[in-house]
């Protein structure tokens, strides 16, 4: 659920013809003052953060004059509330309220319908209100195929004890609200309170709306940066990770940072799950061992090796983790050696000196485990691979033992260097990167194993040198699956002639910033 701010939600309501208080969003006390001046009447200033009970936190303040408004705004802007720092407020005309109502929409998984909830009593805690006044709260399952009809809306309102003209006015707001929610693929919404003013107008005095993550692509106009559910703003590392996911449809890469400042003494590990259920089960296993997670990450749905590589590089951008734990369901349908290769490339580049426990059960797990054990001899950290018959609990146990053997050493992140490639390399573009082959090093190679290792068979020998067997365009379009097999084979067998550059925009700057501290 990509959440919208109150002021964003209100603009959508306004567009649909629902009345909202006059005003606007402000990012500084000066802006607050000028909006108040423009309005020329008493105002209310409300902090824009995703928490409930803002009034009790001092985040809703009233002012009669622009000077007062500016002064009140300084008290709100910069406030720290839960995980947020208030950087914006809404400034609006203060309404003279006669009566308050509640209006909400949820998607009900049992009836598989949008469910409208209307209460003729306003206030917080709708569940509580419904318990004490069941006759004042109405619910209505909307038929998505025909939409909400005006008489259906009026009946919903009528059943909560509303009489007279109000039935008509509120019914009208309900129909408009439903239309705007459907138009913007709202996952949930709440107008609380919906008010009747002294001059008999209906206003949406507050509004919170969240857009379905999977439908964000339909609404570029909303400018949603990270379409993910958070109880705080996304961290810089999460933004970097989200860009990776956004640009590569092959499989899932979900990244959630759980701890930003990790001390030397913390029992914190980097976590790389696979599959929703398998990840959660594995997370529970390490948490039960007393570990803390620096992050929660899920690479699944048959991701390219390059995607797993990027996930690992991002996980290994978190200083002071004590180990790397990867574990999925244990019996994955996807070919597991892709994930193994992604991890190998990342561990190699980072010269991993903390232990890693990698549980890669599923199709071709033997090969995946073999890749981990054969290709990482040059890396100081101990990397152990496990399969479907090894439980997450056992693997969590191994993680603990290996970390202790490693004297609970903290991982030190290193600057991200652009790979050095000889100018005269043979090179071509792939879907998300670039492959360089140093033919000078290939000259005396007898195995030419890169050709055999290449699963999609896109390499061939030309005069004894590996080159593309397909057009450059085909390689770029995805025929090269970025399985990383050629590079890893060449490195392990001592030639080191192949280098696959897979950029991660923003990661270099991110690490530099941390290293400066």
């Amino acid at each position, binding site marked *: 659920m990509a959440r919208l701010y109150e002021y964003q939600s209100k603009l959508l309501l306004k567009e649909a013809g629902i009345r909202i208080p006059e005003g606007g969003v402000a990012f500084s006390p000066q802006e607050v003052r000028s909006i108040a001046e423009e309005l020329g009447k008493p105002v209310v200033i409300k902090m824009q953060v995703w928490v409930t009970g803002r009034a009790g936190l001092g985040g809703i303040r009233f002012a009669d004059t622009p000077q007062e408004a500016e002064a009140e705004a300084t008290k709100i802007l910069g406030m720290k509330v839960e995980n947020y720092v208030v950087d914006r407020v809404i400034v609006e005309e203060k309404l003279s309220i006669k009566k308050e109502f509640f209006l909400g929409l949820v998607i009900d998984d049992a009836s598989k319908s949008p469910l409208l909830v209307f209460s003729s009593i306003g206030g917080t805690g709708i569940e509580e209100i419904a318990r004490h006044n069941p006759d004042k709260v109405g619910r209505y399952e909307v038929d998505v195929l025909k939409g909400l009809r005006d008489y259906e809306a009026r009946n919903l309102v009528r059943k909560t004890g509303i009489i007279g003209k109000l039935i008509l006015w509120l019914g009208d707001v309900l129909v408009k609200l439903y239309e705007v929610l459907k138009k913007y693929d709202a996952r949930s919404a709440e107008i609380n309170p919906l008010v009747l003013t002294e001059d008999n107008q209906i206003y949406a005095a507050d509004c919170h709306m969240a857009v379905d993550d999977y439908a964000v692509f339909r609404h570029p106009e909303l400018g949603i940066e990270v379409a993910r559910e958070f109880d705080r703003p996304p961290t810089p590392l999460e933004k970097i990770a989200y860009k990776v996911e956004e640009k590569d449809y092959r499989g899932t890469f979900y990244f959630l940072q759980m701890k930003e400042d990790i001390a030397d003494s913390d029992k914190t590990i980097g976590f790389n799950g696979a*599959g*929703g259920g398998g990840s959660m089960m594995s997370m529970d296993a390490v948490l039960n061992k007393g570990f803390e997670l620096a992050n929660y990450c899920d690479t699944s749905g048959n991701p390219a090796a390059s995607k797993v590589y990027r996930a690992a590089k991002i996980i290994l951008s978190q200083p002071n983790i004590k180990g790397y734990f990867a574990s999925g369901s244990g019996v*994955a349908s996807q070919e597991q050696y892709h994930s193994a290769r992604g991890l190998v490339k990342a561990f190699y580049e980072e010269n991993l000196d903390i232990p890693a426990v990698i549980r890669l059960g599923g199709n071709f797990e033997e090969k995946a485990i073999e890749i981990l054990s054969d290709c990482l001899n040059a890396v100081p950290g101990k990397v152990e691979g496990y399969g479907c018959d090894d439980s*997450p609990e056992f693997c969590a146990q191994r993680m603990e033992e290996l970390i202790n053997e490693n004297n609970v050493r903290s991982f030190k992140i290193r600057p991200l260097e652009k790979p050095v490639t000889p100018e005269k390399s043979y090179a071509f573009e792939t879907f998300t990167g670039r492959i360089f082959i140093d033919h000078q090093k290939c000259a005396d190679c007898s195995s030419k194993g890169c050709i055999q290792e290449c699963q999609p068979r896109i390499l061939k020998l030309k005069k004894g040198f590996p080159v593309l067997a397909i057009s450059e365009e085909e390689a770029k379009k995805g025929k090269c699956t970025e399985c990383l097999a050629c590079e890893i084979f060449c490195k392990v067998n001592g030639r080191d002639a192949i280098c696959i550059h897979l950029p991660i925009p923003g990661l270099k700057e991110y690490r530099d910033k941390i290293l400066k501290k």
Partner: protein
Amino acid sequence: MSILVDEHSKVLVQGITGREGVVRTKLMTDYGTNVVAGVTPGKGGQEVHGIPVYDSVEEAAEKKGRIDISVIFVPAHLVKNSALEAMDAGVKLLVIVPDRVPIFDVLEIARFARQKQARFVGPNTLGLVSPGKAVLGMIGGRAERAREWFKQGPVGVSSRSGGMTSAISYYLTSAGLGQSTIVHVGGDAVIGLSHPEIMEMFEKDKQTRIVVMFGEIGTSQEERVADLIEQRKFTKPIVAYIGGKAAKSGTRFSHAGAIVEGSRGSYKTKVKRLRDAGVHVVDAVSDIPYKALEIYKLLGEQQ
């Protein structure tokens, strides 16, 4: 017996010429699923692994007669119309594999299904398998693995996680317990057939003696299973595991459905409701096969 699919079900693949469509059609036909046709608009006349491709579901039904099941492998934003097309052509069961289908699209599919008296599994499902009979979707990845991991037997499996569906079934097989039908109901917040609906089918299925359910935080599915048991509409023993014990409220962990909203859908409420209803909720996935075996042995003694 088994539920939803067996070797006789006539199956159609929508999006059969796509990246996943081609590979998973091979899995299904190799395993023994009765795939009779594929659909990709504009590619009628082609063949995929010997299966004829048609331009529309209606055309496939004209040529092949009544189609029982359609397995959908089209990009997420095209899923809604593919599903409506299949139901309009008289298909009564859909398996919607793609991930990231917008929720309002799923609601429309659900409403239309209600009108057409059709059902669907997914979206975001690996599919289902009635061991030894048929596979739908991509579960198992390859036919030889699917045969090795899943064996016929008395346990019905219903799971909200794809990987865990395979994992649990494999662990049951290793413990000597085969499965009647294995269903990955899908990881999304709104899905077609959910745990309670699958339970009602397992209740009627003679082969199913015991059920294993992999639940997760979020949604009301597990609570509704508890309701069914309390109403005596489900009477067979269930072994359950609920994932996401440590998840924080308000934060989504991978699956769109796995989010706790307020007190609704929390780990604690689910476990309590299920235990009160007599479900054997285990604390570790690795306990599932042992618990299932223990209960199965008791069932044998009671007979």
